[in-house]
């Protein structure tokens, strides 16, 4: 398991390649990357992600450990950034390696569902109209009901 909480950008291609290369005994590799959407005509100028140093790492390790208990996994990777981000930047990624695709997919979805509403990150959007904290979505809370 590797958990990284960092302000620096990460290299999605290299992280995906290295993760897969490190687990050639696993038949299935799934990755998810979350991006600050760069939408033409959108007023979003930048996004700032605040986090809770200390708790963030613990929460991510707990979520990843629970995924490893629930599914047959070779490994889990979570990278999540904080700080200043621009449209088009990658915010975070997860990767899972498993003998079979069902485990790799479900574990990645589980990680994402829990990351969304159980890891202490808060997004703030700076738009042409002002500054706003992103509200938690009820569908993200509801998504946990699946597990």
């Amino acid at each position, binding site marked *: 398991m590797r958990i990284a909480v960092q302000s620096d950008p990460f290299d999605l291609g290299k992280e995906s390649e290295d993760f897969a290369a490190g687990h050639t005994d696993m038949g299935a590799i799934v990755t998810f990357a*979350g991006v600050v959407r760069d939408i033409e005509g959108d007023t979003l100028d930048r996004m700032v992600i*605040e986090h*809770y140093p*200390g*708790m963030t790492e*613990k*929460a991510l390790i707990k979520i990843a450990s629970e995924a490893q208990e629930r599914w047959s996994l070779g490994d889990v990777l979570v990278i*999540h950034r904080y700080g200043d981000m621009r449209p088009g930047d990658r*915010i*975070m990624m997860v990767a899972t390696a498993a003998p079979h695709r069902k485990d790799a997919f479900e574990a990645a979805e589980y990680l*994402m569902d829990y*990351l*969304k*509403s*159980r*890891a*202490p*990150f*808060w*997004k*703030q959007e700076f738009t042409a109209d002002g500054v706003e*904290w*992103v*509200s*938690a979505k009820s569908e993200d*809370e509801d998504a946990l009901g699946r597990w």
Partner: protein
Amino acid sequence: MKLDILYFAWVRERIGLPKEKLETSAATVMDLVEELRTREERYAMAFSDLTALRVAIDQELTDFDAALDGAREVAFFPPMTGG
């Protein structure tokens, strides 16, 4: 009992500071919230709707009725928006 109290996101902004130390005899998170509410208007504002808040004791998510026994750090923040 001496506690570190941490605030994040708009809770931090409303209260106007990220962290403070507090000497308290509050038995539960709820007791602590009541105590904070009486301090100043900005605390009363920040804690006006607890359904919009989450709390962690010693960096673990918990509930407002959790006991503070042995706690060192209590954090208040809005629902998380990671991912």
